[in-house]
């Protein structure tokens, strides 16, 4: 089973890297870019058997990983997808 975790900055948190990327896109001639927000994507291979209880239990476990380490919930949101 594989978990896919998206970590993104919360709305309202300044993202200077996203702004720099937006400017670079503009400089390359890509018009129509209103805003860019940069985040992280993390893939976790879950050990066979660790998903006892199915995708729901795995999602709860990975969400706990996000709360404790993968995301800083002061500034970041996270979203978990489970591929069984």
């Amino acid at each position, binding site marked *: 089973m594989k978990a896919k975790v998206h970590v993104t900055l919360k709305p309202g*948190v*300044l993202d*200077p*890297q996203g702004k*720099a990327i937006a400017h670079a896109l503009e400089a390359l001639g890509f018009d129509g870019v209103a805003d860019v927000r940069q985040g992280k994507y993390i893939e976790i291979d879950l050990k066979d058997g660790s998903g006892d209880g199915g995708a729901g239990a795995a999602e709860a476990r990975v969400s706990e990983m996000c709360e*404790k*380490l*993968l995301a*800083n919930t*002061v*500034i970041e949101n996270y979203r978990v997808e489970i591929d069984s």
Partner: protein
Amino acid sequence: MKSAIVVFPGTNRERDMAEALELASGRPPAMVWHRDTGLPEADLIVVPGGFSYGDYLRAGAMAAHSPVLRSVAAAARRGVAVLGVCNGFQILVEAGLLPGALLRNASLKFVCRDIGVRVANGRTAFAGGCDAGRVLRMPVAHHDGNYFADAETLDRLEGEDRIAFRYAPLAGEGPDRFNPNGSVRDIAGIYNEGGNVLGMMPHPENAVRPDQGSTDGLGLFAGLAAALG
């Protein structure tokens, strides 16, 4: 004052900090490796600057979950003075010992230069006897020092007099340059609720000898050593 410095893989300011603490207190600090589970008895525990664990995931995130940090947190709960400088500040916020977060500098650039640091609360041991309003000179050296917290948290910090230091212009410095990283409300350092945990981005340990251009940092450590005995 008995002090201890916590050292992680990637920490690089521990020797500067040790020199400053010995200059101020006359006693060399105990160096504690991150795998040590116990801390020596100390009046002050310092989490110094550097790039613990290569800043992987987020600056300070890995070190914040190491066993030795649990001992630091337990000591902080008992009222022991804890100082986090630069990466140490990042580690303390990631560990939840201080509120908020430290984002990438607004300029996106690593900033390394002397800055002005205004004492915002002069009534703690960490202020070293400096009155509020006094501007000290010391360097910053970081890529992720842009302090952020939501408005409610910031108002609470200000209401409880928990802003330790704010960036301020040095003599001759313009109003658009003194905040080196975009920190909200020019915050350079904050206290926990008990006032015994301080996190700050500037490096007082690198302002302790005349050849470093400032000895204002030594004043802070000397005052702290006098207060902690």
